[in-house]
């Protein structure tokens, strides 16, 4: 039942909003993973980021795609928890691990074992709109455990203008989505993070983002 609700929600609400109200300019959509296990890493500006990426995967792959999201934010009450896990299909992640007994990556590992496609925002938070924060190294731990899983970098621009953190009203702006070639575990945490970071910088440099000259 919830699977049907999820399908309907994405087909009739998410897709029209993302494709018509927002509007996407996608470069190299064919580089997105065709099937799991796979990870997509993207910069994070807005709640719409997840919706755009899930729209790009299309309805056919919807059942396999799951965003990883902060448990403290998305499970904060029962209604929100139901909506996040059942309709959006998030895999909750404890941002702050209090006890050392539980493996914080257990949910992610389980999903990858189940051949899922995961969406990760390694910045950890939406932060200031359209400003990229440094990626947290959690993805390196995942990559180390799954050296054969591809990590596809995606850079998005525009959604931080449409629905930035702290705003409840959506204002339409076209969204650029640039997808890079997949990256694999390099054998070392530093070089892996550097490879991902370089890939993101390259994607960001593809288009000049409009700013008024400093006055």
């Amino acid at each position, binding site marked *: 039942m919830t699977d049907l609700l999820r399908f309907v929600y994405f087909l009739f609400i998410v897709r029209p909003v993302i494709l018509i109200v927002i*509007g996407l300019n996608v470069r190299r959509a064919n580089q997105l993973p065709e099937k799991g296990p796979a990870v997509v890493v993207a910069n994070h500006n807005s709640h719409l980021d997840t919706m755009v990426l899930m729209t790009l995967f299309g309805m056919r792959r919807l059942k396999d795609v799951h965003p990883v999201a902060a448990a403290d934010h998305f499970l904060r009450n029962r209604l929100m928890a139901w909506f996040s896990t059942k309709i959006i299909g998030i895999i909750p992640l404890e941002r702050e691990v209090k006890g050392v007994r539980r493996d914080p990556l257990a949910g992610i590992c389980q999903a990858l074992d189940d051949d899922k496609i995961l969406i990760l925002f390694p910045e950890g938070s939406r932060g200031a709109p359209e400003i990229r924060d440094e990626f947290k190294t959690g993805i390196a731990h995942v990559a180390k455990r799954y050296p054969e899983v591809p990590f596809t970098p995606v850079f998005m621009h525009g959604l931080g203008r449409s629905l930035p953190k702290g705003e409840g009203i959506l204002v*339409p702006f*076209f969204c650029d989505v640039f997808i890079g070639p997949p990256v694999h575990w390099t054998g070392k945490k530093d070089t892996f993070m550097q490879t991902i970071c370089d890939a993101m910088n390259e994607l960001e440099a593809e288009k000049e983002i*409009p700013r008024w000259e400093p006055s």
Partner: protein
Amino acid sequence: MSLFDHLSTEICLTFAAIAGLLLLANVILILRKRADPDRDDTELVLRVRTWWIIVGCFAFMVAVSRTTAVAFLGFVSFLAFKEFLSLIPTRRADHRVLFWAYLAIPFQYCWVAIAWFGMFVIFIPVYMFLGLPTRMVLIGETKGFLRAIGTVQWGLMTTVFSLSHAAMLMMIQPGDSARVPAVWADEASKASGGAALLVLLVLLTQFNDVAQFCWGKTIGKRKVIPKVSPGKTVGGLIGGIASTVALAACVGPWLTFLDLPRSLLAGLIIGVAGFAGDLSISALKRDLGVKDAGHTLPGHGGVLDRVDSLTYTAPLFFHFIYYCYG
């Protein structure tokens, strides 16, 4: 076809003729490819294919009803305004102001749909012009105020106010006391007199774009304004305007209730204004350092790239008609 029943025969024939022209373009491209297989026509093939979609959507929406045609043009305005805002830098503080600016679009097209001319003609130049800066002031961010409000208002005037005149053409009903008497082909065409004006405007404007482009490629060396648009030559400009006036003279009196002198004048207005509109959007793109305004229409660029001339021709053609027949 029952869908096209309320449109005059002339309008239906015009759409058929446009389809014929596009078919001709397809055939020429195929023959060219066959004569020279190495030739790269991808851009042109894409452009013609997108033309098919544009003409198809436009004809369909005009054919369904006047309201759907108004809604369709409202959606075009929305896309063009969104493209404009996405191109320019905006201030983070103005999030809510931009939301109000977007709201102007359904209101403006609502005035068109209910044919409330008085509101239609002042809503954006008066109420939005005063309302948006007031909303902006309430936020309290003064740094970059003039630039922020100036750009948003210019965008609204160009992509919403100007374009909505194309939709308003459909509401024109020539009165008995008009300065110039309307010439009707038959009783049946009276019902779609406004739609015929819209079709004439769009046809002449887009034809003018193509004609100026083609004449510019074949004749003329002296550039008109090389700093803004290096492709525009004096020969191309004159050839384009002459072609548009000629087409207006052939089509105008047959398709619409305009007589020959008014048709010639309309052609001249559209030829000159189309050129100016094209240049003004070119200047905007150059200022922002982009080639195309968007990516919505493969082979053309963005919606703004396609309606650039229309933002100038629509209000000028409308007021010319309104003066003569309103």
